[in-house]
């Protein structure tokens, strides 16, 4: 298993290099101009100078290699310096990948945005798992019961109704129809500057997270609970379940030990593969509730032709996808003894 993991990690290097190249080329081909948003009064020669100062006059492969150097060597070294205080080489004068718009280091603004996304999107993911797994188990065990039918209906709604719609409906109900002094009132906008210092502020944090988390969780839950249900149904009709019953085990043991363990194998894989999407943020939901997360950052970057920012974010997503694919494979091997990687 360890050998397998190391081998997969080594294989990930060429994969990621290839991905970085593709990202670089695609963004380079995009008809974007970082000076496009500047006032029209700026004469073309000055625009040209600005482009040159950004290094855009160099040939593509030079820019790619410089970017690689920045991205794979300078930024990681800088992170070591910032987080652990380890200084390798020239720590103070090191170049950073800078946003063309804000002129601040891209990595810093990503690190700044990360907590909001993790709180809201990550929490919604956790909530949806915690809700979806029991729903899937009960729905399958009591197939075609009223519980199953209701679960199916909720799942279909979760699937079919887009998040911008559920988000607005929740805002209308909980932020406008309920008076703001009522306990059930929820803030319609997420306050990014809010800090949790005591119980009261923690409660406020929970309240402002409630709606975005619900909106996102509903969608995820719909998917996961259907998946869990299908997997449980597959396993409930297996011969080994009959054996377990014939051994005189309690129904609870049969379902929650024998069947659940088998049913979780594909579901855990799906959950692991879905984790990178958390970091990708939920662009629409973040927009509706004003959560200043990574999704919002990406949108701003795209609109402003901020290529370094978009490159960095896209590449981070690529790394996460490769990484969680590996994690999913490893989990699969741990859960299912029939699969052994050599």
């Amino acid at each position, binding site marked *: 298993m360890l050998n397998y993991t190391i081998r997969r990690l080594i294989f990930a290097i060429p994969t990621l290099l290839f991905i970085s190249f593709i990202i670089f080329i695609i963004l380079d081909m995009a008809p974007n101009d970082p000076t496009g948003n500047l006032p029209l009064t700026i004469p073309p020669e000055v625009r040209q100078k600005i482009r040159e100062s950004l290094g855009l006059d160099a040939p593509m492969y030079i820019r790619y290699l410089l970017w690689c150097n920045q991205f794979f060597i300078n930024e990681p070294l800088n992170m070591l310096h910032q987080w652990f205080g380890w200084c390798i080489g020239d720590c103070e004068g090191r170049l950073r990948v800078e946003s063309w718009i804000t002129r601040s280091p891209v990595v810093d603004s990503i690190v700044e945005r990360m907590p909001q996304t993790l709180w809201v999107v990550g929490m919604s993911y956790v909530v949806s798992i915690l809700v979806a797994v029991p729903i899937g188990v009960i729905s399958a065990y009591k197939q075609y019961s009223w519980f199953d039918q209701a679960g199916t209906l909720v799942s279909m709604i979760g699937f079919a109704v887009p998040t911008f719609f559920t988000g607005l409906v929740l805002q209308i109900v909980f932020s406008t129809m309920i008076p703001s002094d009522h306990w059930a009132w929820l803030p319609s906008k997420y306050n990014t500057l809010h800090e949790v210092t005591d119980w009261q502020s923690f409660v406020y944090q929970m309240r402002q997270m409630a709606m975005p988390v619900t909106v996102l969780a509903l969608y995820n839950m719909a998917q996961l609970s259907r998946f869990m249900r299908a997997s449980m149904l597959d396993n409930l009709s297996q011969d080994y379940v009959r054996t377990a019953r*014939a051994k005189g*085990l309690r129904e609870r043991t049969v379902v929650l030990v024998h069947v659940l*363990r088998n049913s979780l194998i594909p579901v855990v894989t799906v959950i692991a593969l879905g984790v990178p999407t958390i970091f990708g943020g939920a662009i629409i939901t973040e927009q509706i509730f004003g959560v200043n997360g990574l999704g919002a950052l990406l949108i701003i970057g795209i609109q402003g032709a901020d290529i370094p920012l978009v490159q960095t974010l896209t590449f981070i997503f690529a790394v996460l996808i490769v990484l969680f694919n590996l994690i999913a494979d490893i989990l699969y091997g741990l859960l299912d003894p029939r699969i052994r990687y050599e």
Partner: protein
Amino acid sequence: MLDQNANVLDVANLKTVFNTRDGMVHAVNGVSFSLAPGELLGIVGESGSGKSVTMMSLLKLLPMPPAEIQGGSITFDGQDVRAMSEDRLRRLRGGEIGFIFQDPMTSLNPVFNVGFQLMEPLRVHMGMSKAAARVRAKELLELVGIPDAERRLKDFPHQFSGGMRQRVMIAIALACDPKVLIADEPTTALDVTIQAQILELIKDLREKLGMAIIWITHDLGVVAEIADRVAVMYAGQIVEHAPVKELFRNPQHPYTRALLETLPKVEGPRNERLLSIEGQPPSLSEAPSTCEFAPRCKYAFDKCRTDNPARIEVGNSHDVACWWDPTTGGPRDA
């Protein structure tokens, strides 16, 4: 004939139906049999004749709904099984009655090791500690002839061959020293040499442990080799029942006779093609009111198409549910 009360298992007039979307299916229609301690009862019949459903009904192992036991009595060791609580029934399953199933490839849980699966009934029914159960599990694997038992406990089902897996299943079924072992086509999914090994093993274990066995099969050869008594099932009913030698010497029911005729002979001339019984077994949307075999029977006459025959004693502990008498070639006077 043994005294009724001495039987370890008595089943009388058992009826099981399935309520499906397309209506009821009458899978078991008034099955009665008994089992003495230490005895081996063979149950023969083609696919869909209700053999397995009968046995699963005994311990309520069928999914209910759609299955429903509509009538009859089941007495195990003097106790009424149908009236038992779910808790008591669970103690019966795996504790006093062991089950072996047809396909050892799918009957074990793939994600737990064999030791865990073998220790489960020991811990549930006998209240053993983990350590004690492990010792017993190792003994059981040795009992069913699995070499290097200690190490094999940690192995997963996919690391065993088909025959070895069936041995594990047998070990699980025998774990709590049951009074009755129900083997539902335990050798059907195995190849012939492994089949022979498993048969030997069961014979051997029966001698050592002395439990009664119900052996479900569609293989008359297997029955001839190991059974004391045989019941032949057709359309959810026992159509003929006799001690094994008597049945093979003196088959009464046209179905049994046809089954025996389909066996290829070792001596004498052989047919180019294997013989078969023409037609299909009936699908039972209603409880049988006529002889269900009549449409496929070459001796059928009017009465067969209007009345369902009851089981009639013909001597030598032999009974048959048929209106036709093979000795006279005409209707039976009953």
